[in-house]
């Protein structure tokens, strides 16, 4: 085992955005620098002075993969700042849209990360070695997308969702279709679990997360939450949205263009692994069963991907229920939830949303309808420091197990992918 070690991954493969990892081992200490090398985009700055109602539309452009969460979180924040209360149906549709994103997004993440666990290395290889499974998963993905379109029209950057409004006219039959489809999807996902478990090998078995603090949304009701007014931490601390700044601190590190977020000065993590632990009691029984089937180890960061699968399965079922419930509330034909203009008021609002990768915070201050201040904290930022801490522990653990340098690099890359395969959100 080498005394000193210097490894660099210039660009982590199979992620969106540019990220480099520098690994340095100097005798006893291991240092992992997680650097987002992509240039910042100044979303928060250029919205200044523009109508607050534009914020959701623009903010959704932070990420083309998880646009809905930025869109909806921004809507939540603007609604709070302007003191607008959406109709319950609008809110329900928004939750549906948000849920769909979590399902679709996490499902794709699972598909992308799975080759790391099956030993195929990449998706193309995976599709060759498991053609039937792959085809089935692709089919599920297609069906999820199709159902999503019935609610929101276009998939990426949907123009349908607006402040206190849902633009796309909704029909009862469409909602019923969505309900049926998602119930089927959910069922299939549970069915697939068995064959998945066979090929889903653990990575770094035995490795333990050195910083087990996590953060989730506090469910406003007994249900997997999409939006909330409170943040909950694994240490039991609960804080209201407006006061997030008191516990979450953003910092700029020299080696990265992205900021990092700390909870009371300590790293914490967000995402499905956190949610599955926090919302265990809210999960459907099949989902709880699934955790066992897949053998999810919540202390292993790599098992975030398994947690995601569980979440997808659970949420699919939940979405099916929700859409059928909503369908029952619509009497017949088409329902319009497109609202007119929003008053140009002043105020401040913080939106919290369950992003596929964790918790998203949008914070706006509005004066006379114009945006005065905007701050966005993305899950990628929250996880940024945790990746480093976990990475350092992982490198020490691996080296202690006598893993060679090339494999160490692969492990670190896989770890990055397990957290979040999509980095542009970090620089917004």
């Amino acid at each position, binding site marked *: 085992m080498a005394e000193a070690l210097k490894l660099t991954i210039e660009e982590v493969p199979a992620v969106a955005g540019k990220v480099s990892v520098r690994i340095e081992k100097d005798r006893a200490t291991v240092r992992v620098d997680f650097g987002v090398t992509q240039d910042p985009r100044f979303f928060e700055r250029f919205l200044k002075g*523009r*109508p607050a109602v*534009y914020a959701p*539309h*623009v903010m959704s452009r932070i990420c083309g993969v998880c646009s809905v969460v930025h869109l909806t979180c921004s809507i939540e924040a603007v609604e709070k700042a302007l003191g607008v209360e959406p109709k319950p149906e609008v809110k329900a549709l928004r939750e549906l849209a948000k849920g769909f994103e979590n399902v679709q997004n996490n499902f794709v993440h699972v598909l992308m990360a799975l080759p790391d666990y099956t030993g195929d290395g990449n998706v193309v290889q995976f599709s060759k070695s498991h053609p039937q499974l792959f085809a089935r998963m692709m089919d599920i993905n297609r069906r999820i997308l199709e159902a999503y379109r019935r609610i*929101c*029209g*276009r998939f990426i950057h*949907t*123009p*349908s969702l*607006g402040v206190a409004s*849902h*633009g*796309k*006219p909704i029909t009862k039959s469409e909602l019923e279709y969505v309900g049926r489809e998602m119930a089927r999807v959910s069922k299939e996902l549970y069915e697939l679990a068995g064959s998945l478990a066979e090929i889903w090998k653990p990575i770094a078995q035995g490795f333990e997360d050195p910083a087990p603090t996590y953060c989730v949304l506090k469910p406003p009701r007994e249900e997997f939450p999409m939006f909330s007014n409170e943040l909950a931490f694994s240490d039991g601390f609960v804080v209201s949205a407006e006061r997030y700044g008191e516990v979450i601190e953003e910092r700029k590190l020299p080696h990265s263009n992205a900021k990092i977020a700390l909870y009371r000065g300590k790293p914490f993590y967000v995402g499905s692994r956190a949610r599955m632990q926090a919302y265990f009691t809210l999960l459907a029984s099949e989902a709880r069963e699934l955790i066992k089937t897949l053998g999810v180890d919540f202390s292993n960061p790599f098992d975030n991907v398994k947690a995601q699968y569980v979440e997808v399965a659970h949420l699919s079922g939940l979405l099916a229920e929700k859409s059928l419930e909503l369908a029952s509330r619509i009497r017949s034909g088409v329902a319009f939830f*497109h609202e*007119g*203009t929003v008053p140009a008021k002043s105020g401040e609002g913080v939106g919290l949303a369950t992003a596929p990768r964790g918790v998203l915070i949008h914070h706006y201050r509005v004066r006379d309808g114009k945006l005065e201040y905007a701050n966005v904290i993305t899950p990628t930022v929250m996880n940024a420091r945790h990746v480093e801490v976990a990475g350092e522990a992982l490198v020490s653990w691996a080296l202690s197990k006598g893993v060679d340098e090339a494999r160490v690099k692969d492990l670190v890359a896989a770890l990055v992918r397990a957290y979040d395969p999509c980095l542009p959100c970090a620089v917004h």
Partner: protein
Amino acid sequence: MVKVKIDGRVVEVEPGTTVLEAAEKAGVEIPRLCVVPGLYEGSSCRLCLVKTPAGRLFPSCNYRVYRDEEFLASTPDLWEMRRVNFELLLKFHRIECWACERKSSCPLVELSKELLVDGIPVCSECPLPPNECLLLKGELCLGMIAQSGCNAECLVSGGECWGCRGPITREDLLERAFARYKELGFDVKDVVSKAEIYWNSAPGFATVKKVAERVGSRG
């Protein structure tokens, strides 16, 4: 019966059939605007021009075949000529799609897509009828001044147009559009401010600003 060869496809037709009819039979698409059988003899729009192998041009709507003949209908130069021609036609069209009942079935809109001609606003693709226009509901939709071609995705999904495909640059059209914004009670400055989000560095934005200022400064 005579044999007509159009773009390599051979059809048999009655003598006296127009090339256009023969092309339809052969499954070759030729654009046209002016000919209305029984009402107008055509040959005005010049979009249906076809070429003989010798290079002579004829409007297919009007040229009747009496013997075996060959025509080319889809050469690049023909399409280029059609495009230039169509641009010329549009130059003197008012293009007020937002007020036009025909927008959903307008051959100009279809041709502008086929010939990749810019300058038709998103309104032309908006699924909403003129009396359901978002602008009437007070929503600042940029459809009137934004370049079409997206099939009005946002409007179809229930949003308003943000003009992501860039501005229309024809001044007379912008002028009418801004006048309409004003008429409907929008502040021209707000329109420009919204447009700025996507168009700040778009080539035609300077024109948009210029026209907006001109319209805005009018009483």
